[in-house]
C-alpha cells in the first residue's frame, strides 16, 4: 500500500475515462514520434547519400531535379551532358575527383546506372558475392535489387528503356550479373551498376557494333554522353569558382547537394510543422482532459480525501496523490504513444519499401523522444496542479459534517 496503489485503484475505478485520456495523449505523442523518426531517418539517409559530394553537374534544368535524379535516383534527369564538356570539368584544377553517371535504363523499376568503380568506393560498399564489372554489359546488383529480383551470379536480363517500369526492353543486349553488393544502407542498395560503356552500347545509334568490349573506341567523342557528374572539390575555394564557371560557360547546370537538400527540407518542413502543430494541439487537449477528469474526481472523492486526512494524511500527501495520478496517466500515455509512434514508423517503412522509396524503420531511437517523454510528464503534472492544490485544501470537518 502506497500512493501508487491508491492512484492505480482510482484510475482503474474510472477505467473508461482513464483509457480515453491515455489514448488522447498517446495519439499526440505517437504523431510527434512518427514525425521525429521519419524526418530524422530521412535526413540521415539523405545526408549519407550526399556525403562527400560537393557539386553535381547535369543538363540545364532545375537544380533540385538534378540532385534528386543524380544523387537520390528519385526523379528523372534533366537531360544528358556532352562527354567533351564533361571532360573539361573533370580536368579543371578546382576538381579533385569526379564520378560520371550515365542513366537511361531500368530493370523492374530499379535504375541501371553506368558509372565507374569509384562510385562504389565512394559509398564504402563492396561486393558481397562475385566482383565488380570489368567489361561492358557486366552488371553488379545492389543488395535490395538482388533480394527483390532473386538474381544471382551469372543471371542474364534485359534492361527496359526509361527509368520507370514498362519501358521497351533492349532484348538484343542483355546484361550479365557478375556481382552483388553487400547492403550499405545507401542509394546503391537499389541500383543496378554497370560501366558507362554498357549504357552507350544499349543506346548506340548505330546498331552494327562488332565488339561491345571495344565500344568506347568505335564511338566518336561527340556521340558519347553522360547524364551527370558527381564532383568533389579540390579545396573549399572551388565552391566560389566552379559553380559559376559551369553555369556561365557551358550548356550544363551545377547544383549543390547541401543547398538543394536544405531547400527540400524547408519545403517538407512546412508540412512537418503543420503535423507537429496538430500533434501539440492533441497533447494540449489531452492535458485539458486529464485536468477535467481529475477536477471532477475531486468532487467524487471529497469524502475519501477527508477520510484520508482523519487517518493521518498530511495535506501534502493528498497533493502528492493527485500529482502522482496525473503523472501516472501521463506516463501511460507517453509509453503507449512512443510504442504507437514506433509501430506506425515501422508500418510506414513497409509501405515506403514497397514503393522502393526511402527506408524508414520503427527500430530506431531519436534522442528528441526523451524531450517528448518530458513534455508528456510535464503536461500530466501541470494538469494535476490545480486539482492537487484543491485536494490539499480539503476542509475535513466541514466535508464530514455534511455527511
Amino acid at each position, binding site marked *: 500500500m502506497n500512493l501508487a496503489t491508491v492512484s492505480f485503484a482510482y484510475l482503474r475505478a474510472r477505467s473508461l475515462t482513464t483509457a480515453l485520456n491515455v489514448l488522447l495523449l498517446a495519439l499526440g505523442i505517437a504523431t510527434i514520434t512518427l514525425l521525429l523518426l521519419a524526418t530524422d531517418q530521412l535526413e540521415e539517409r539523405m545526408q549519407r547519400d550526399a556525403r562527400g559530394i560537393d557539386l553535381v553537374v547535369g543538363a540545364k534544368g532545375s537544380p533540385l531535379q538534378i540532385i534528386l535524379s543524380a544523387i537520390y535516383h528519385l526523379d528523372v534527369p534533366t537531360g544528358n551532358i556532352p562527354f567533351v564538356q564533361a571532360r573539361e570539368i573533370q580536368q579543371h584544377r578546382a576538381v579533385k575527383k569526379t564520378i560520371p553517371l550515365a542513366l537511361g535504363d531500368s530493370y523492374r523499376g530499379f535504375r541501371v546506372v553506368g558509372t565507374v568503380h569509384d562510385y562504389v568506393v565512394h559509398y564504402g560498399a563492396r561486393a558481397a558475392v562475385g566482383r565488380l564489372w570489368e567489361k561492358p554489359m557486366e552488371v553488379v546488383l545492389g543488395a535490395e535489387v538482388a533480394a527483390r529480383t532473386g538474381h544471382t551470379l551469372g543471371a542474364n536480363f534485359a534492361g527496359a528503356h526509361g527509368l520507370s517500369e514498362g519501358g521497351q526492353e533492349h532484348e538484343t543486349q542483355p546484361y550479365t550479373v557478375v556481382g552483388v553488393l553487400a547492403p550499405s544502407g545507401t542509394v546503391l542498395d537499389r541500383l543496378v551498376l554497370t560501366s558507362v560503356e554498357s549504357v552507350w552500347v544499349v543506346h548506340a545509334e548505330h546498331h552494327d557494333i562488332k565488339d561491345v568490349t571495344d565500344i568506347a573506341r568505335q564511338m566518336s567523342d561527340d556521340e558519347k554522353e553522360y547524364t551527370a557528374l558527381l564532383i568533389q572539390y579540390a579545396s573549399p575555394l572551388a565552391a566560389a569558382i566552379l559553380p559559376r564557371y559551369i553555369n556561365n560557360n557551358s550548356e550544363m547546370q551545377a547544383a549543390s547537394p547541401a543547398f538543394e537538400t536544405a531547400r527540400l527540407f524547408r519545403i517538407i518542413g512546412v508540412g512537418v510543422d503543420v503535423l507537429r502543430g496538430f500533434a501539440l494541439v492533441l497533447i494540449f487537449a489531452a492535458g485539458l482532459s486529464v485536468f477535467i477528469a481529475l477536477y471532477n474526481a475531486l468532487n467524487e472523492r471529497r469524502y475519501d480525501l477527508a477520510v484520508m486526512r482523519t*487517518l*493521518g494524511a*498530511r495535506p501534502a500527501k493528498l497533493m502528492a496523490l493527485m500529482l502522482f495520478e496525473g503523472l501516472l496517466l501521463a506516463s501511460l500515455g507517453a509509453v503507449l504513444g512512443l510504442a504507437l509512434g514506433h509501430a506506425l514508423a515501422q508500418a510506414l517503412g513497409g509501405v515506403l519499401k514497397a514503393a522502393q522509396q526511402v527506408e524508414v524503420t520503427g527500430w530506431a531511437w531519436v534522442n528528441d523522444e526523451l524531450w517528448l517523454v518530458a513534455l508528456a510528464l510535464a503536461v500530466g503534472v501541470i494538469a494535476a496542479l490545480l486539482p492537487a492544490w484543491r485536494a490539499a485544501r480539503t476542509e475535513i470537518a466541514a466535508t464530514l459534517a455534511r455527511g
Partner: protein
Amino acid sequence: MFVLKNLRHAYDGGDVLNIPAWDAESGAHWLVVGPSGSGKTTLLHILAGILRPTAGSVTVAGQDIGALPAAGLDRFRGRHIGIVLQRLHLVTSLTVMNNLLLAQYLAGLAQDKAHVNGLLASLELGDKAGAYPHELSHGQAQRAAVARAVVNQPQLLLADEPTSNLDDQRCWQALELLETQARACGATLVIATHDQRIKSRVSNHYALGDSS
C-alpha cells in the same frame, strides 16, 4: 485520558459549543448526547483534532493537541485516534484489506498484513479482505469501518451516530462491536448519538444543548 478545559467553539452562524470541563478516564465509555444541531459532531471533530476549537484546550493521552503543529497533529491523529464516521466512508475503489492497510500507511506505521487479517477474521470479515465496499452488506461495511478505526490500536475511539437508522437488533450489535473493540485495544470510547435506545446501556453521559 482526555481533558477538555474551557472549550468554546463558535461557527459563523453563532452556533456555540461550550464545555467548561470534561475529564474522561482511560478506558471509559462515554456517550455524547443531545438533539440534532447541539454540536455533537463538532465536539467529536474537536476531540479528533480535525477541527481546532475557537478557545480552550484539548489534551488527549497527555498531549495538548492544540499545541501540535498541523503536520504533527495529523500524525498524532493517525496513530492515536480512531474514527468511525456516521456514513462509514470506506474508500470505495480500495478493497477492505487495502482500506485497513491505508490506515496503517497514512499513519506512517508498518503495514502488517497478518495483523489486518487477524483483525478481519475476529470481525467475521476474513473472507471479505479482497472485497470492495459496494460488495458488503451494511453490517459488514460497519465492521470494516470499525476495523479500520482500530487497526492502529488507538487510545481514543470516536464514533458518530453508529446506530442511527438501524433496527433494534443491529443497534445492539453495533454498540457491542464498538465496546468490544475499544476494550480490545484499551481505548477510551466516545459515541456521539441522539439514539435514546442506547442511553441505558452506557453509563457515562455527556449532555449537550437543550438536554443539559
